[in-house]
């Protein structure tokens, strides 16, 4: 394919990605250094209250927003350098907490609390998703042929469901004295409030994510299991390998690339955790990095959006994505060069 033809085919897609992905990225980067605020002016206001013999007058300076001719609040945009980042990271408070030895206080700062949860969430769900997906794939592979279709159908439901709705459906099982809370209370003979503290909410979030992603891992591993080399398996049996050894030394190495693939996709998606926070309304206990940006973008009570701080938070979130992708991109590049 000639370069010109190639360019013609790729152009529409490339243009869309440039306008709607690359350009916003650059503008977010730029925005994070600027703050747009209403212009305030300080005016001296004299207020008088009628009194005897003369009115009591006090003068005070007030700041009020400047209005333009149309009566709208004037805004100005100014360069603030790293201030938005400083506001997000609050390094002085972190340093204080570190020097005084009260590490827990760092988690009172939104950004660090979101970072802690996002990393914990990503790293804990990863092994569970892979093991659960593998277990389901092995069990389905073991089942009677006629059962496999229906089982795959049922398994796909949690994967395909709208994430927010999936989170809500689990929330409704537990909220108040929901059916599963009542069940747990019966089992443990004690009062349980699942939404009163952070760690129970986090447990539900972990459960939701595994429930949602395990089907994906399962489908991929199941497809991989169909192509396991039967000859290798048979020779392993002849060599006296036990079932576990066959799984460990034949099947899992065969699935290796697929496991890497699932892990990569899962890391990308779990790092973006967001729907869990919205669905469980957990913002007072647990927040995630993407939710933090989302929240800053929402208009506050006065109708202002903290665009600058949202941009700073978005840029800080990006660092994680970059770290995550360095290894796979380098590997892909090596393979690409070897392939040519």
């Amino acid at each position, binding site marked *: 394919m000639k*370069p010109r*033809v*190639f360019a013609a*085919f*790729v152009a529409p*897609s*490339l243009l*869309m*990605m440039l*306008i*709607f*992905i690359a350009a*916003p*990225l650059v503008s977010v980067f730029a*925005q994070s250094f600027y703050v*747009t605020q209403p212009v305030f002016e300080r005016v001296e206001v004299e207020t008088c209250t009628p009194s005897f013999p003369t009115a009591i007058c006090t003068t005070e300076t007030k700041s009020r927003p400047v209005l333009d001719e149309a009566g709208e609040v004037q805004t100005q945009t100014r360069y603030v350098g790293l201030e938005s980042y400083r506001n997000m990271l609050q390094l002085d408070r972190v340093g204080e907490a570190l020097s005084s030895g009260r590490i827990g206080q760092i988690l009172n700062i939104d950004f660090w609390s979101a970072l802690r949860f996002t990393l914990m969430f990503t790293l804990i769900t990863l092994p569970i998703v892979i093991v659960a997906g593998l277990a*389901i794939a092995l*069990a389905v592979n*073991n089942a009677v042929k006629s059962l496999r279709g229906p089982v795959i*159908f049922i398994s*796909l*439901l*949690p994967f395909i*469901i*709208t994430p*927010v*709705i*999936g989170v*809500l*459906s689990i929330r*409704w*099982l537990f909220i*108040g004295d929901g*059916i599963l*809370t009542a*069940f747990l209370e019966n089992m443990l003979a004690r009062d349980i409030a699942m939404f009163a503290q952070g760690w129970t909410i986090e447990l539900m979030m972990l459960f939701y994510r595994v429930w949602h992603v395990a089907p*994906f891992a399962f*489908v991929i591993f199941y*497809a991989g299991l169909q192509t396991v080399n039967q000859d290798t398996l*048979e020779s392993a*049996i002849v060599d006296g390998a036990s*079932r576990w050894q066959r799984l460990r030394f034949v099947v899992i190495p065969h699935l290796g*690339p697929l496991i890497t*693939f699932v892990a990569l996709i899962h890391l*990308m998606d779990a790092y*973006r955790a967001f729907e869990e926070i*919205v669905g469980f*309304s957990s913002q007072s206990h647990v927040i995630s990095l993407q939710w933090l*940006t*989302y929240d800053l*973008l929402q208009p506050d009570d006065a109708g202002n959006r903290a*665009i600058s701080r949202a*941009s700073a938070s978005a840029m800080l979130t*990006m660092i994680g*994505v970059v770290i995550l*992708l360095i290894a796979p*991109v380098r590997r*892909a*590049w090596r393979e690409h060069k070897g*392939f040519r």
Partner: protein
Amino acid sequence: MTAKTLRQPLPLRLASAGFLAFWCLLAIFPIAWIAIMSVKSPVDAFSGSFSEVLTGPATRAGGAGLSGIDLVLGGAVILLLIRWAFTGLPGLVRRRTPAGLLALGWLLGGLGYAVLFGAVVFWLLPTVLGPLDAALGPLGAPVIGATFDHYYAVWVENAFYRNFINSLIVTAGVVTISLTVGTLAGYALARSPSNLAFWLLIAALIFRALPHSVLVAGYLPVFINSRDWLAPIFGEAAPTLYGQPYAVIAVLVAINQPFTIWMLRSFFQNIPTELDEAARVDGCTHFQAFRQVIMPVMWPGVITTGLFSFLLGYNDFLVTSLLLDAQNQTMVPAIASYFNRETTTTDQVEAIAAAVSITAPLFVLVMVFQRQIVSGLTAGAVKG
């Protein structure tokens, strides 16, 4: 290798079957449970006992319930309808549609079937079974409490159909534009081994990993102020992009592009290059070869990728909730207005009914397209 050596011991088989049964229960329970809750009165829906939620005594006491006759007859009719969708409908569509328009025929067939299904379940069955229950006396007494009040409240009183229409516009736009743009790029990327193609794919991979809120942070100020910077081009008629479903379509298409071109590329790679070469030898240009030779054999891949584009547009919460205002909201963000109110349990059950309404089309989608979804998931993985 004899079958005996490969046979698994009984405990292992039992454990495997037990685990599978447990997983199936786990997978379906939350979804099935909210479907059951949505047809009960609030008292029953949030009751702490399994049997009360299932049978719904308070709903029954309220006069809404299904009798044994209803369950048997209604169940039979619904089962027949579903069976017919898989046995009778495909043949009917194939016979009635002219050769080139099969996709259109299926679209119309699907719509017609949805209307038929709705008419039978929500109109024909109640009008026939109501008098029948009354005539049968004790046999017609309700056994299971069930009410469609919440669905009525959501769809008619709260005008959820408007959100539904917005969702339709957004998803239809996302799917068609994604596929048009994506097939061109996917084809070129599958056929070009150049460094440029490689770096494009890597850039797409990086874009796929971006949190969507990062991108929205870039759009929001631009969209809100779009009147100002579009004024030199459009003059007085400059639109505010914020709140426009069409702007959201463009954004979602772009967000979806990386995924689409990766998936379409792996489908195109499965089509032998000899096919293009034969067409080129016969005098086709690249575009003609693509349009008249490659695309006709590419339909399975296009349908599969279309399904995933549909899911992205349909399931999105973040982009639509930030870029659309309350009047133009799609279904998924609209549901947030229910669970933020949280005043009464009736609101809650209505939210559940809305959630089930959103899930129902997805359920049908998996039922019809299970094979395509599985092939789509594995297409990316097996190719690496």
